[in-house]
């Protein structure tokens, strides 16, 4: 529902959109405009606090892995992976290389389902002028069917390795509770050839979508690994030269309370906004993309535009979708079951911190374990809370170009910009309340 009110006495105009579909979580956006300039863009998060960092206190590492998976239904693997790597790093646990490869395969499954969902059902309708994926399906049946098929394959991978597709249960400190036999993966392997072809088609398709202009500089942050596109391993790097171990997030970044928001905002220690996610990873990690994905990215000619126009994040996401599918195929082709599903380990005290790459960007976990090996403190920094400042910054940059448009069109374009970040404010947003306070200058 959209309403517009223009109180004549104050020369202020308030625009309100009470429902933003196709994002996760609950939040509001307020734009304050003076004399045609956007002087403030605030993304307020009014979703209730969820207290997961307190819920895990007193729990064992394996219990934590199951609990944090409940933070998000779209990216539970990311929460499990950041937690399990944190505990294994802190406790000095070394896993079988075959376990590491299986975890990459599991993470690929999450990227596949999350990216396919966002590209096809949440974001693409914006570019084609449809109010929803349902409306788009009426005219683009084959496109939607392709997206659904790719997404389902990601779900199947998660279910096979994680025990079920939503809130999986098999990840354990030291490995998995159960690992598949090579034959168990045969069915998914057969589907992957077609899915890789479909992902190539996806890259070409999104690269050709009509896209709004935006040209701005942004600080990018992501993991970087010398040999592989980053899922769970690598160092935290930035486009301005940062280089930290995956436990080193607090050295460069800090969370802060922001008025009007139940979510913490993260900024660099010197107060700058930064961007995570597909656009950041493509910008910082393109050399380690799978050859098929690198070739597809080059064919688009949009590698630079991904870094300057967040609307092009759909292209970055599609390239990563192709990467995840192609790597999943390679991982299955080379799969040998580990000697044991998990290695034995001994509980103990210590700091356990790690960052992995959720579909939406860097996800940092930091735990301290007490003498019994139970959690004493926990800090979880999801990617959307880190992206909020960048979202506000981009909104302030982009908004002047649309404020003179009719309200409905201006709102649609601003919502489109927000969706470009694939925000997850539960991890991130069900309703976005758009308010534009306009004061004539």
């Amino acid at each position, binding site marked *: 529902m959209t309403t517009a009110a223009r109180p004549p006495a104050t020369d202020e105009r308030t625009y309100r959109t009470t429902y933003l579909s196709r994002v*996760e979580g609950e939040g509001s956006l307020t734009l304050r405009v003076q004399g045609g300039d956007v002087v403030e863009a605030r993304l307020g998060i009014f979703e209730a606090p969820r207290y997961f960092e307190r819920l895990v206190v007193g729990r064992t590492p394996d219990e934590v892995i199951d609990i944090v998976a*409940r933070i998000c*239904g*779209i990216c539970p693997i990311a929460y499990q992976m950041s937690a399990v790597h944190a505990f294994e790093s802190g406790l000095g646990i070394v896993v079988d290389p075959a376990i590491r490869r299986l975890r990459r395969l599991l993470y690929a499954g999450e990227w596949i389902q999350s990216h396919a*969902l966002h590209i096809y*059902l949440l974001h693409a309708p914006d570019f084609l002028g449809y109010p*929803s*994926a*349902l409306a788009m*399906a*009426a005219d683009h*049946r084959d496109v*939607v*069917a392709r997206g*659904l*098929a790719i997404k*389902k394959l990601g*779900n199947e991978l998660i279910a096979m390795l994680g025990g*079920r*597709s*939503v*809130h999986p249960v098999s990840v354990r400190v030291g490995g998995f509770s159960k690992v598949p036999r090579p034959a168990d993966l045969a069915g998914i392997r057969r589907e992957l050839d077609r899915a890789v072809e479909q992902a190539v088609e996806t890259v070409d398709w999104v690269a050709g979508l009509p896209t709004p202009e935006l040209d701005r500089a942004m600080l990018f942050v992501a993991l970087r690994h010398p040999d592989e596109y980053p899922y769970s391993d690598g160092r935290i790097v930035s486009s301005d030269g940062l280089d930290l171990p995956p436990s080193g997030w607090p050295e460069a970044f800090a969370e802060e309370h922001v008025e009007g928001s139940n979510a913490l905002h993260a900024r660099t220690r010197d107060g700058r906004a930064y961007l995570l996610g597909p656009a950041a990873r493509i910008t910082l990690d393109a050399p380690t993309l799978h050859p098929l994905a690198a070739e597809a990215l080059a064919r688009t000619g949009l590698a630079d535009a991904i870094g300057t126009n967040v609307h092009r994040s759909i292209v970055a996401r599609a390239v990563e979708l192709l990467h995840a599918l192609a790597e999943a195929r390679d991982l299955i082709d080379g799969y040998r079951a580990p000697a044991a599903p998990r290695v034995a380990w001994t509980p103990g005290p210590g700091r356990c911190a790690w960052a992995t790459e959720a579909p939406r960007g860097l996800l940092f976990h930091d735990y301290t374990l007490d003498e019994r090996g139970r959690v004493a403190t926990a800090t979880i920094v999801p990617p959307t809370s880190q992206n909020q400042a960048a979202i506000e910054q981009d909104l302030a940059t982009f908004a002047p170009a649309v404020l003179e448009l009719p309200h409905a069109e201006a709102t649609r374009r601003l919502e489109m910009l927000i969706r470009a970040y694939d925000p997850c404010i*539960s991890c991130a947003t*069900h309703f976005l309340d758009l308010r534009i306070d306009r004061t004539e200058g």
Partner: protein
Amino acid sequence: MAADVRPVRILVLGEPERGDDGAAFAAVPLALAELSPLVRRRLDVRRTGQLDPLDLIDLPTDGWAIVVDAVCGVRPGRIVSLPLGDLTTDRIRPRSTHLLPVEELIAMAGLVRGAAIPGVFVGVGVSATGLGDGLSPVVSDALPDLVGAIVEEVVRRVGAPVLVGL
């Protein structure tokens, strides 16, 4: 009752570890236990948790879907049974925090399939869906009615004799 041998697909939605959201997971096994082995062999039961449109799109040409889920927005314990086509416009909406609303997914499946999805939605109004297993007393009390509604839909599509002991 005319025997109808159309393949019937039961989609079990919800989350057994979130209280009443696990109603479908509790009811479907009880419903299956009331059906004869002959009938059970004609059923394709998929415990998917979330609705995947592809589970509807690839229904056999003469297939029939029974989507079972917990329902928000109606009196706790109330049994809801309505054609899938009506669900797209009905105000009674199963609520999901992820993906798209169930009614949108069903409509989308119909558009991709090129025809409306034949089937029914069967659900029960929830009382408590917080973390933890086990149903609330009001939904536990309604479970026999939910089981009965599922069995009734199966009987309607597969035909008699279906019940154990008949």
